[in-house]
Structure formats: structure tokens, C-alpha cells
């Protein structure tokens, strides 16, 4: 019972980190309808910015975290400006955007390999990881609880931004139909920059937590594949879907690791993807009927 509760908490905590990443990815997908493979790069940028900010400006997680979020948001918006906008403005073919995003993900990852080196680094101990006794049933790490709380805060913030603000309204309109939103007077380029900025900020939060969990290295971004799968399980382009999908994925992964074999956890993720596509291809919350060919 104790182990089960522990794995449950681990799973939800991991799932909430995936959710931060998957929501950003899904947000971009809902507007531009392509998988931004450079999203993993944003995580790495967030992690490394936080690492260097902490190292050079004293171990203050507030400063480091803020700088990491800001830098990653700007990097994400810049990525869109440099690599995607020229393609977007010329053609409608999503394949070109996919290839460009693959290129950007390779560039970001290898920029870190070449300049900083592929060494594994641990963030300075600014985020508490000491064990916490929970309701007398189980012991868990303070870090797990913290990552859940932070994820909830950021996801609520995003929800408020999307539901209450004017730009949020524009994002919702663009998710329905980008072209029509543009014709109604929404500054589409500005909107897409904002979407990428928000996605980058969320990815940075995920990146900081992932680099505490798994240490920091340039290939850390490869973990976004799980966020992509989570987004598909929840329904591509749907934000609540991305959150629920991430939680399911985190739980499935941790329960497999805890009770079957930790080597099988990635296989479980992939099987979950295939099962979703076979049984309910729209995912749990996919609203629009998918185009089936």
C-alpha cells in the first residue's frame, strides 16, 4: 500500500512535469497544426539558463527561475521568427515546417554540445528534495510535491490567460481558424510570437524540474517525445487533453517502473500511443472529428 501510494505520487508528479511540456506543444499545434520538434530544445535552454544563472548570481531560485523562463520564452519566439515565419508566409505545406523544426532541434541541442560539452550537470541544490512523510501512509520527496504545486500554478495561470485576456481570446479564435482570425483584425504574427513565448516559458519550467530529476545534459530534450505522446493520448491540440494525457502517461510510466520493470517504461509509453490511435484516434478530448483518409 505504501509503495503503491508512493508510485502514485511519483507518477502524478512526473505527469505534471510532462503536462507543462505537452501543453506548450499542444498550444503551438492548435494554432499552426504542426509538431514543433524544437520544443525539446526549449527545455534544454531553460535548464541551462537556470543552471548558469544559479551558478553566477548566487543560489537564488527566484532569480534563476525567472531568467530561465524569460530567456526560453524569448528563444522560442526567436526560433519561430527565424525558422518558421519565412516558411509560413510562403507556403501552406506543413512538411517544410516539420523539417525546419527538426533542424532547429538539432541546432539547439548541438549548440550546447559544442559550446558547453555533453557532460551531465546537476543543478545546485536550490529545490528541496528531502523526504516528506505524508498522512502517515507514505514517504515522498518534497521535490515531487513541489513540482505538482508549481505545475498547477502555471497551468492555472495559462488557463486564466487563455480564458480571460484579450490575447487569450485571439488564441482561441486562431485555434479555430488562423486565417479567419487574421481577417478579423488579429495580428497573426504577434499572436504566434506570443504563443511561442508562452510555450517556451512552460517548457522552461518543465526543463528546470526535469534537470533536477534527471540531471542536465544536451539530449534532455529527447524526453519531449513523451509529452508529444501525452498530447496525442489527450487529443492533439486540446489543452485539457494534454494535461490529462500527461497524468495518464506519468502514472503508467511510474507504475510500470515500480511494479514490473523500469526498462519497460518507455515501451509502455509507446504502446499507449498505438492503443490510443487504434481505439480512439481523436484522443480523450479531441473535439473536432479527425480527417480520416
Amino acid at each position, binding site marked *: 500500500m505504501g509503495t503503491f501510494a508512493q508510485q502514485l505520487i511519483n507518477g502524478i508528479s512526473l505527469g505534471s512535469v510532462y503536462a507543462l511540456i505537452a501543453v506548450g506543444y499542444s498550444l503551438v*499545434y492548435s494554432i499552426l*497544426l*504542426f*509538431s514543433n*520538434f524544437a520544443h525539446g530544445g526549449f527545455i534544454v535552454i531553460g535548464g541551462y539558463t537556470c543552471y548558469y544563472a544559479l551558478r553566477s548570481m548566487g543560489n537564488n531560485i527566484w532569480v534563476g527561475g525567472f531568467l530561465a523562463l524569460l530567456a526560453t520564452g524569448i528563444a522560442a519566439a526567436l526560433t519561430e521568427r*527565424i*525558422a518558421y515565419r*519565412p*516558411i509560413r508566409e510562403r*507556403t501552406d*505545406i*506543413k*512538411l*517544410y*515546417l*516539420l*523539417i*525546419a523544426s*527538426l*533542424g*532547429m*532541434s*538539432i*541546432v*539547439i*541541442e*548541438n*549548440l550546447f*554540445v*559544442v559550446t558547453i560539452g555533453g557532460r551531465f550537470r546537476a543543478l545546485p541544490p536550490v529545490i528541496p528534495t528531502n523526504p516528506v512523510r505524508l498522512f502517515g501512509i507514505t514517504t515522498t520527496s518534497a521535490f515531487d510535491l513541489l513540482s505538482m504545486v508549481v505545475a498547477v500554478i502555471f497551468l492555472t495561470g495559462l488557463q486564466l490567460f487563455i480564458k480571460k485576456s484579450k490575447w487569450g481570446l485571439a488564441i482561441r479564435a486562431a485555434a479555430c481558424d488562423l486565417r479567419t482570425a487574421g481577417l478579423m483584425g488579429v495580428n497573426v504574427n504577434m499572436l504566434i510570437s506570443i504563443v511561442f513565448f508562452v510555450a517556451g516559458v512552460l517548457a522552461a519550467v518543465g526543463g528546470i524540474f526535469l534537470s533536477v530529476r534527471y540531471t542536465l545534459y544536451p539530449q534532455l530534450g*529527447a524526453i519531449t*517525445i513523451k509529452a*508529444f*505522446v501525452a498530447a*496525442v493520448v489527450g487529443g*492533439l491540440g486540446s489543452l485539457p487533453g494534454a494535461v490529462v494525457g500527461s497524468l495518464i502517461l506519468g502514472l503508467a510510466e511510474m507504475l510500470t517502473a515500480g511494479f514490473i520493470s523500469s*526498462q*519497460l517504461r*518507455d*515501451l509502455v*509509453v*509507446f504502446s499507449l*500511443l*498505438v492503443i490510443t*490511435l*487504434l481505439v480512439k*484516434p481523436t484522443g480523450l478530448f479531441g473535439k473536432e472529428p*479527425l*480527417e*480520416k*483518409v
Partner: protein
Amino acid sequence: MGYFGGIIILLCINSIAAMGVSLLTGFTGIFTLGHAAYMALGAYTTAILTVQYGVHWFLAILAGGVISMTIAYLIGIPTLKLMGDYYAIASIGLVESIRLILENWQSLTKGARGYPGIEGFTTLPVALIFLVVMTIGMINLINSRYGRAFKACRDDYLAASLLGYNTAFYRILSLAISGFYCGIAGALMAGFMTFIQPVMFDMMKSTELTSVVVFGGLGSLSGTLLASTVITLVVELFRPISQYRMLIYGGILVAIMVLRPEGIMGSWEVWDLSKGLSFVRTKSKRGGNDGLS
């Protein structure tokens, strides 16, 4: 055989694999990040059949191709019936899963340390004959009814389906054939290296295959062969600065997509070039006349 002969064999193998990806990405317009998985399947099937069961290498190579084709077909059914990036995401999952299975199925694949002692059957003539036969096969396929159906699915799946093409069938068929090509390439790789390891077929290899096709031109077979030659040679020449290799790949991918998304050759073939030039000339002449009148 020597170093030079080795490079030629490697060239043949890479070209066969790149042709497979070219069919899927260039001619059918489906993005993949996991074709190294099919190479791994082909390589391991051949290795296990020849070493453990004493099957003749030629049959083992074909078996490798067929196994890859079957797996590709099975993956294609859930993912390619849907429009969207489902196959792209599944392909990353696939390459990771195959690697995990190969590393953990100790009794069959000898795990992460690799599979030694494979007969060195891929000699220069064998590699060249395979390349020639597979190239002729691909040219015929692309210029056949099927090839036109693939291109129709790429350019406008709605129009293609209105013309009575079962686009899902053609998309899955294209994936299966491209899996076959990569399986054969992997099998030849096993016979060339005489030692295979799961890490030889990772994401980086998949990325390389996709990059080759993009460099060469989406929808140009000779472009793919040309790019495959150039890249194999460049990789050999620049071994000393190999840490920059991926960075340069990524940069070039983005640059090509931004500046010239058609790649080096566009959709032209080398053998169309003389025809092409005269076509361009007549077109410009006609254009001039239009300007005058």
C-alpha cells in the same frame, strides 16, 4: 577491399536506405524520424538468421527486408489512416522501442554490447548489385501507377481521394515499401560491419536519413542519391571535426527549408535535366512573348 572500397559499400547502403525514406517523405509527403528502426530490424534479422540458424545470407537479407516491411505495415495501419503528425510522433516512439527491445532481449540479440561474428557477405559487387537492382525497382515504382498515386497523396489527398484513390492504402503501402528498402540496407550493413550494435541505429541515424532526402530534394530520386553520395563523402572527409557535424546538419536543414525548400534538385531528376533546361528556355521565351503582346 581497402578503405576506398569500404566507402563505396557504405555509399551503396546509405543510398538504398535514403531511397526508402525518399519514397515516404519525398514522394508521399509523410515525415519520419525513425527509419533507423527498420534498418535495425533488417540488420538484426539477418544477423540472427545467418549466425544462429545458418540461413544463406541472400535469403537472410530478403528476410530482413520482409520483416521490416511487415513491421512498417503494422505501424502504418493505426497512424497513417489519420491526417496529422501521428506517424512522425509514432516513428520516434518506434525507434526508441526497437532500441529498448534490442538492448533488453539478451537471449536473442545479445543486448547492448552488440552482435558479433556476422559473416562479411557484403562485398563490393554484392552492394553494387543490390544498389542497381533497388534503384531500378524504385524508378519503375515511381513512374508507375502507384508512384503517381503516391505523389497525388502528397500534393492533395482530398483531390486524390475524389479521383477514387484509396489514399490511406497508398500511404501505408509507401511506408511498407520504404521499410523494405531500409530493412535491406540494414541487412547489408550487418554484412559489411560484421558487428552490429543497437546504438548504430539511433535517432541520429534516422535524422541523417531524413536530412539526406531533404538535401537532395523532396521528390527527386537522383537528388536523393546525389545527396547521399555527397554526405557520405563529406562525413568521411570531415571526421576530425565530427562534433560539428550535427550542428551543420541542423543549420543546413533550416536554411534549406527557409531558402529553397525543394532541396538541391527540386522535383527534377538528373535524367530530366537536359529536357528541363529546354523546358525552362521555351517557357521563358513564351513568357517574353506574352510580355510583348
